Structure formats: structure tokens, C-alpha cells
């Protein structure tokens, strides 16, 4: 019933789309993406250009398909047999859904930051070294150099430099999330996928992560899933509002937040504020 009402109240997604055809090249190009689960159409004909080296925020209520869209980008949807993914997702000139490229190589182009940090069951040092070793780097000096560089990049070096060999689970949850980011950055990804990365963090840790995103966004394409409106406003260069598996509106944050075109987004913003 709610779905029917939403359909009536919402103008056609195509009409509502205000994504600027700017000169910024796309890092990810999604065409006709559909994800089905038994008895549930999770993503419905998603067409989206994600600009390079910008923060694209996927915004929307719980269950609207944001995380599924994010997981489609690095094919973590492969882990769920019940999901049927069709369409094309072009990343770095390769249609990742239909490629013959090894999925592990493909995933190295993208770092993932999940809702809850998942450090590996090993020391802080080995956590960051893990990804480097996966890339075939064996030179200990190079590994040590990269570990310091990436830990500095996420602002963790000064906090952990004297205890690099202690287990990563001794860190606070905010530090663990930064460690996961450092671990992801170590493999030099093109894209960072962040699935509500601050939802389990306290306000100070959240603010540190947001600050980090602002600092690194000129070097990486960041796709951030969030349902926190204020966070979207603070971070986004491009906002995609999703509802029931569809893209309802997308565009620059000023445009989207100051002048929402659809009733659904207006309602969402009203409740979110």
C-alpha cells in the first residue's frame, strides 16, 4: 500500500533526475542494473554515473537498496546465491558484472569500509600489511614504509606507532575503523565504498572519519551510503536519493537539499531534520 502510494506521489525518476552532465569523468557507470531476490525486486533499473574523485552519497531510508547497490559495485553480491544481478557496471573500462577478470583482482580496485569495523585477527602492523602482501609486495622495507604512510594518512600513526605489534582488537572502535580505512588505502584502490562507516562510532570518531574523507576525496572516488542527512550535506559532491530500489532524485547537494523535486525526498528530509 505504501509502495503504491509512493509511486503515485513520486514523479518519474527520469524526470526527477538532475545529475549534471558536467565535465567530471565517471569512475563508475551503471546501466540498467536490476537485483532480484526471491519474491523481492531489490534494485530496479538503476542508471547512474558516479563522478571520479568526488564523494557520491547514496541516501535513503533503510531497506531502499543502498547497501545492495554498494555491494554490487565490488560483486560482494556474489556471496548471496539468492541474489540475481543483471545489467552493466563499468569500472575502469571493464563491465565488472560480465568480465572474465578475476573477481579478487577486481575487488582490489575498491576499498570497503563497513558499518562496523572488522580489523583482522592479527596485529595492527599485519592488518595493514595484509593487503600489501595480497598485492604481491614482499619487500619488508617497502611494506613498513607503506604501513607508516597509510597510518599517517588516516591520522592513526602517532596513536599506534609504539604498539604496532599489539593486536588490532585493543584499539577503540573509532581507531579500528581508521585502521580498516588505512588497510583499504594500502592496496591503492581507485574507489572507496563506505557503507554507513560512522554508524557504530561516537560523534568524535565520526567527525574524524568525515574529516578524512574530505582530505582524501581528491585522490579517490568515494561512494558513501548513509541515512544521516547532515552527514550527506557535509560530505557530498553528488547525492543520489533512493527509495524502494529506485533512484528518485540525484544531483549536486545544494540543488537536492534546497530544492527537492519529489514529495518523497521532501518528506525524508523533513523527518531526517
Amino acid at each position, binding site marked *: 500500500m505504501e509502495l503504491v502510494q509512493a509511486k503515485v506521489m513520486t514523479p518519474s525518476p527520469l524526470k526527477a533526475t538532475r545529475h549534471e552532465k558536467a565535465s567530471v569523468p565517471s569512475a563508475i557507470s551503471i546501466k540498467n542494473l536490476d537485483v532480484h531476490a526471491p519474491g523481492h525486486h531489490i534494485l530496479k533499473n538503476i542508471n547512474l554515473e558516479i563522478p571520479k574523485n568526488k564523494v557520491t552519497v547514496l541516501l535513503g531510508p533503510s531497506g531502499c537498496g543502498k547497501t545492495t547497490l554498494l*555491494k554490487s559495485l*565490488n560483486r*560482494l553480491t*556474489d*556471496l*548471496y*546465491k539468492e541474489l540475481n544481478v543483471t545489467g552493466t557496471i563499468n569500472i575502469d573500462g571493464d563491465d565488472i558484472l560480465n568480465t572474465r577478470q578475476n573477481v*579478487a*583482482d*577486481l*575487488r*582490489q580496485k*575498491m*576499498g*570497503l569500509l*563497513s*558499518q*562496523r569495523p*572488522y*580489523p*583482522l*585477527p*592479527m*596485529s595492527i602492523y599485519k592488518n595493514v600489511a*595484509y*593487503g600489501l602482501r*595480497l*598485492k604481491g609486495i614482499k619487500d619488508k622495507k617497502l611494506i613498513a614504509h607503506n604501513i607508516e604512510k597509510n597510518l599517517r594518512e588516516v591520522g592513526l600513526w602517532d596513536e599506534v606507532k609504539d604498539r604496532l605489534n599489539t*593486536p*588490532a*582488537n585493543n584499539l577503540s572502535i573509532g581507531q579500528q575503523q581508521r585502521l*580498516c580505512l588505512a*588497510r*583499504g588505502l594500502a*592496496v591503492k584502490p581507485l574507489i572507496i*565504498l563506505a557503507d554507513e562507516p560512522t554508524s557504530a562510532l561516537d560523534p568524535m570518531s565520526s567527525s574524524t572519519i568525515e574529516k578524512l574523507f574530505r582530505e582524501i576525496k581528491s585522490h579517490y572516488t568515494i561512494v558513501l551510503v548513509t541515512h544521516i542527512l547532515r552527514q550527506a550535506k557535509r560530505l557530498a559532491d553528488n547525492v543520489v536519493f533512493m527509495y524502494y530500489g529506485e533512484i528518485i532524485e540525484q544531483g549536486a547537494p545544494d540543488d537536492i537539499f534546497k530544492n527537492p523535486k519529489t514529495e518523497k525526498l521532501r518528506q525524508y528530509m523533513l523527518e531526517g531534520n
Partner: protein
Amino acid sequence: MKQAKLIEEKIFKSLSGIATYSLIAILAFIIVVIFVKGFNALSFDMITKTPKGGYYYGGEGGVLNAIIGSLYIALGATLIAVLIGVPAALFINVHLVRHKKTQTTVRYFLDALWGIPSIVYGAFGFTLMLYLGMNASLLAGIITVALLIAPIVVRTFDEVLSKIPIGMQESVLAMGSTKTETAFKIMLKQGFPGLITAILLAFGRGIGDAASVLFTAGYTDLIPVNLDEPAATLPLAIFFQLSSPIPEVRERAYAAAAILTIIILIISLSARALSRRYSKTIIK
């Protein structure tokens, strides 16, 4: 109403407390009975000598043959069970994660295997032994006990692995790890304390089981030096000595039981210490 809830709370707390401490009391009672009944027979000879002539009529000697035989069989079988069980548990949790129905079916069969009585494994091992033209031997005993305890290793380790959040697996795969790397470098490490528990349970079952080795390992007063020689085991040593009409021999059965208990306690305590050590790095 509030008073009723308070009474209900007190009754439940008392009953569950009684249940818990009763089990501990039963364990203590078993240990006390075994040690009291076997105390007179417990001697240095008992653990350092094999049975001499007339041992089963109260003559001199010990159960070193059964201690060594039991350790050989339990260690050999545990090694095989771990070699089979660890990849199997990892397969269920990494490769079958997309195939929930198959995963459930595999677990069902493993549970069924776990539930099969050890005498059935003994009978199966005996048939296999005859088919392969083997005699009752250390090897036949190891293989049969390995079959008996492999489901314990798989299912216990599987339970631990299944508790690892899928998010951790996703994070590792997202970095570009293959499933094999994820299984052996991360899942195994995260589940390692649980694996130690699985090994301990399997070893305890293996060293203490009499029925599976009755027809397969045989019994001898000698310490086996080859895999094709028969091997004595502590459970059978207890069984044979306990059925004796001679009181001194029956005392030795309790002493052998005390030795078996001590071995299991030592293994249990070492495993706990090891488990605690490896728990330091796991993510909670």
C-alpha cells in the same frame, strides 16, 4: 505481582544453581571414587612398566603399553581428524556460504555421523580391516578412531566459524583475497581458539573410547613399534582388569582409570592455556 516475580526469580536461580553445581559435584565424585579405589595400585611401576608374567593374576608390571597405545591412537586419530576436519569446516563456512540448503544438509549428515555409537564405528572399522586384509593393529585403530572423531572436529569448529560475522569475510574478500586465502589466513586464525576446543573434545573422545578399538586395535602387553602391530589402550585395559575376580587386578583398573583421567586433565588444561593465548588477537 512484584513479589511473585521475585519468588519466581529466586526459584529459578536456585534450581539452575543446583543443576550446575550438581554436575561439578558428580565430576568430583567420579574423580574421588576412581582415585580412592585405585590409590593402592597407583605406583611408579604402573606408568613405567609393561605387564609382566602373571600381571593379570596380581603379578608385577604396569600399564605403560596401554598408555603409549592410547596416546598413539588418540594422537594419530586426532591428527587425521584435524587434517580432514579443518578444511571441511572451512569449506562449509566459506564455499558453502552461498548454498544454504547444501550447508544445512551437510551439517545434518555430520550431526548424524557424530551421533552414531562408537561400536558401530568399531564394526565398520573391523569390516574395512578385513576388506583391506589388515590385522588388528595400531593403524586400524587410528583409522577407526579418526572416523569416530572427525565429525566432532568438523562440527565443533564449524559452530565456531559460523559465529564469525559475515562482515569480516566480506571485508577480507573486498580487499581482493581469494576464498582460500580468506579461509586459511583469516577464518582459521579467528576460529583458532575454537579449533583447540574441537581438538580437545575429539582427543578426549578418542583416548577414552573402548568400543571402536575393541576389534580394530586389538590388545597386547607390548608397546607397538610399527603401525601394523596391535596396540593396547587404556579403556580396554580398564575393561579387562575390571572384569577380573582378583581384587588387586580390579584396583589396577581404577588406577588405569585415574591415569586416563589425569592425561585428559593435562590435555584439557594445556588446551585452555593455548586457547587463551590465541584468543588475544581474535576480534570480538
